[in-house]
């Protein structure tokens, strides 16, 4: 990969390996070791994406089982407990193992390219967050195989249903798996967010001021802040729950002084910002795509950024609108009701501005744009039903009915997932160097759009005529059957669409029939489109000097003074940090720690007493700590590459 330029007299491209244990794989490592030890943000992004797409299929299968069970009244596809496990796992999987990591995949891959950086600030930490995410996914899904099966507590895990006192299977381990997988997933999200914040604040190319940052990067920054401020609440709530379940504390045990209400507050102080953590990346993606396919800059860039920040900020002040029916009293419900209505304003601003962007443009309807337009329309529907829920009297009927299910699927599939799919169709050419099949893409969009609306639009009506959420069965005579059948058919259509889409993404790199993409196939606007597709290992051969927002566009169409320049090549080339085993080892250590904690309790057959054995947990912890120490000792190290001036 390193092309020696005449300019360099004495390139030492391979560094000497110092550590004896787990020697660092060298620069030219290939195959599986390359992927296991990589610290390249692009490879990490790809792995995030692949794992998340796998979990998307898994969570989708769970959804289809749920829909099959609801095909008709009193169906027997699943038992009630299996059904409850399905919706718990479906919710948890889709939120923590699909939408968040898919966003993280884009953050990883795209954000450093957009700000003109060669990698994120802490590449090895980035790898660690990937392995923590995968460990979390493994732990959550391991629950199927142990006592009690998967958790049947809902993705929200309301106390006191999670208390051992109310377990419906003796020694149910499901909630424990749920707790520990969320903890380790939280760790992954926190590490990634610290990294992104540092990267965006500190590693921008010269001239890339904050107000020149692409909107997607801005949303990355806002989401990262939301994560580091919101996740502590759930982490502590889960710690308290873990203590309740394992060591008999009374945080949520109302029979011994605790308050189940507390869990709901802590959960939603995290949970509501989480909603914006899920939707803002998709908004960022759409804010990138619409200008490109309208050939106009984003309308009201400052206002979009500002409204994103306001949404993020206010997201912390509206959590109790999930709890209108818990009896908080007139004052609290009214206050949260009004605050929730206010948050609709910055959200509306974004929609106005997207339409303003298209106004007067030259609109092309290619697949990414179709998904972006699908996002706008369906997010609008989800947003409007959201306004309805902000009104307490309306919520008194809607809460925990299918109306709410319709609402948040409009936001999370119609919104987040469509936005992320738009991102895939938009950026995969940059990733693979090949254009995706446009016809197939449009077919996928058509299937997903039809399937999605067939599934979720009838749910508004079902909710209004009284179908409650999270019920594995319904009786005859409520008039639920027809609409549930339509929804089920829609769900299968949506499923087929998603499977074809995922197939298209996964095979994009290997499909030889696809046309090459070139540097800038869409005539797009931001910095990543000045690079070759696929992007070189070092991203930028020379650090760009940014002169304007939408730099790629300005380079093509802007006045001379707005064209970007490049820093001169310096003598020792491009420094690339070395690959490392330690993130993987540390990740495995955490996995061991978590599994050790999960299985540390056993019951003495003779005395019936609880025996605690912490050895495996401690062993896991020691591996993790050793991994971190070795990591610190080995340092970033690295090797140098010598690209030609324009080889990027």
């Amino acid at each position, binding site marked *: 990969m390193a092309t020696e330029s005449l300019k360099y007299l004495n390139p030492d491209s391979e560094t000497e390996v110092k550590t004896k244990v787990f020697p660092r794989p060298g620069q030219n490592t290939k195959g599986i070791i390359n992927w296991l030890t990589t610290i390249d943000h692009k490879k990490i992004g790809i792995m995030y994406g692949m794992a998340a797409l796998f979990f998307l299929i898994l969570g989708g299968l769970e959804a289809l089982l749920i829909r099959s069970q609801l095909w008709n009244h009193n169906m027997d596809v699943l038992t009630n407990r299996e059904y409850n496990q399905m919706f718990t796992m479906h919710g948890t999987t889709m939120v923590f193992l699909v939408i968040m990591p898919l966003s993280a995949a884009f953050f990883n891959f795209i954000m450093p390219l957009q700000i003109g950086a060669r990698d994120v*600030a802490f590449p090895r930490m980035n790898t660690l967050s990937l392995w923590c995410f995968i460990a979390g996914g493994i732990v959550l899904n391991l629950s199927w195989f142990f006592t009690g099966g998967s958790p049947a507590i809902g993705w929200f895990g309301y106390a006191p249903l999670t208390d051992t006192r109310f377990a419906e299977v003796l020694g149910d381990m499901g909630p424990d798996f749920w707790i520990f997988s969320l903890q380790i997933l939280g760790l992954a999200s*926190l590490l990634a967010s*610290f990294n992104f914040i540092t990267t965006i604040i500190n590693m921008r190319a010269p001239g890339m001021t904050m107000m020149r940052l692409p909107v997607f990067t801005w949303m990355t920054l806002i989401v990262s802040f939301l994560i580091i401020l*919101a996740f502590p609440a759930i982490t502590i709530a889960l710690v*308290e729950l873990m*203590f309740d379940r394992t060591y008999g*504390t009374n945080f949520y045990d109302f029979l*011994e002084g605790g308050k189940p209400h507390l869990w709901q507050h802590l959960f939603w102080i995290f949970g509501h910002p989480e909603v914006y953590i899920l939707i803002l990346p998709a908004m960022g993606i759409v804010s990138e795509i619409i200008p490109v396919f309208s050939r106009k800059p984003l309308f009201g860039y400052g206002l979009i950024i500002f409204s994103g920040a306001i949404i993020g900020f206010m997201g912390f002040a509206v959590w109790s609108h999930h709890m209108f029916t818990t009896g908080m009293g007139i004052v609290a419900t009214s206050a949260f009701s009004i605050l929730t209505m206010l948050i609709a304003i910055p959200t509306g601003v974004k929609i106005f501005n997207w339409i303003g962007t298209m106004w007067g443009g030259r609109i092309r309807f290619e697949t990414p744009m179709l998904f972006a337009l699908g996002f706008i329309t369906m997010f609008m529907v989800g947003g409007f039903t959201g306004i309805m829920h902000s009104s307490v009297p309306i919520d008194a009927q809607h809460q925990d009915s299918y109306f709410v299910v319709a609402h948040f699927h409009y936001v999370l599939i119609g919104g987040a997932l469509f936005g992320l799919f738009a991102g895939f169709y938009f950026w995969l050419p940059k990733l693979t160097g090949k254009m995706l099949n446009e016809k197939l893409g449009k077919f996928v969009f058509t299937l997903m759009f039809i399937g999605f609306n067939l599934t979720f639009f009838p749910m508004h009506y079902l909710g209004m005529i009284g179908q409650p959420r999270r019920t594995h069965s319904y009786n005859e005579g409520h008039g639920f059957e027809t609409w549930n059948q339509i929804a089920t058919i829609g769900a299968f259509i949506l499923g087929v669409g998603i499977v074809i889409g995922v197939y298209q993404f996964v095979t994009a790199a290997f499909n030889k029939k696809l046309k090459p993409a070139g540097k800038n196939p869409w005539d797009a606007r931001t910095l990543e489109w000045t690079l070759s597709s696929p992007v070189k290992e070092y991203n930028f051969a020379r650090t760009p000097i940014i002169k304007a927002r939408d730099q790629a566009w300005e380079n093509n169409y802007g006045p001379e003074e707005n064209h970007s320049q490049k820093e001169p090549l310096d003598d020792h080339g491009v420094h690339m940090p070395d690959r490392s085993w330690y993130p993987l080892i540390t990740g495995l250590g955490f996995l061991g720690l978590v599994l050790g904690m999960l299985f540390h309790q056993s019951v003495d057959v003779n005395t019936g007493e609880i025996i605690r054995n912490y050895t495996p947990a401690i062993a896991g912890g020691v591996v993790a700590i050793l991994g971190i120490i070795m990591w610190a000792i080995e340092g970033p*190290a690295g090797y140098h590459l010598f690209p030609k001036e324009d080889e990027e």
Partner: protein
Amino acid sequence: MSEASAHAIDHHEPVTSTGIPNKKVLMWAFLGSDCMFFGTLISTHLIYRKISATVGGNFLDIRDIFDIELTSFSTFILLASSLFMALAVSAIHKGNLNSTRWMLFGTIVFGAIFLACQVYEFTHFVHAPGNELTLSSYRGEPHVFGSTFYVLTGTHGTHVAIGVFWLIGWLIYSFTGKMSTADAMDIECCGLYWHFVDIVWILIFPVVYLMEYAF
């Protein structure tokens, strides 16, 4: 410490957009997040403040179990350790290796004294005759004070312990002969962490030990 392996390739800190080193931004972001961790724990404790004031239906001042003198002493020790930490950072900036070493040592010792006080306190409370405070009960009655107290102060203690181990790492490193002013920034990050943990204790001390538990 990560700059430990001095390499053929020079590893000067890259120039950053803000001029603040990456690690420091990372540390500030982490501390922001950590504020929320402690914020959640302290809120939990405060929410249960009223419930903590009764045991088995009878009102009582649960602070009776505390030994305020001991805790004031350990608070003072922890604050004093912050001074050592600040001096250590200042010394490494000046390149005074010997002084850095001693100041780090002082911080570690004071941190360890604080931890010892806490361990003593915990064991004392659990076994106090007639006044046993466990995770789940007080005087044998189911109670929530033990839960919030141990988990809140325990989390803080864990933070102190992590800090102590981190400092021990630096102390060991200082004997390898590789320590230089180039490490000043890393030690400063460590110092930021240490000061933060102290400040959190200044918040926890009145909230847990001084404030009245009553309706």
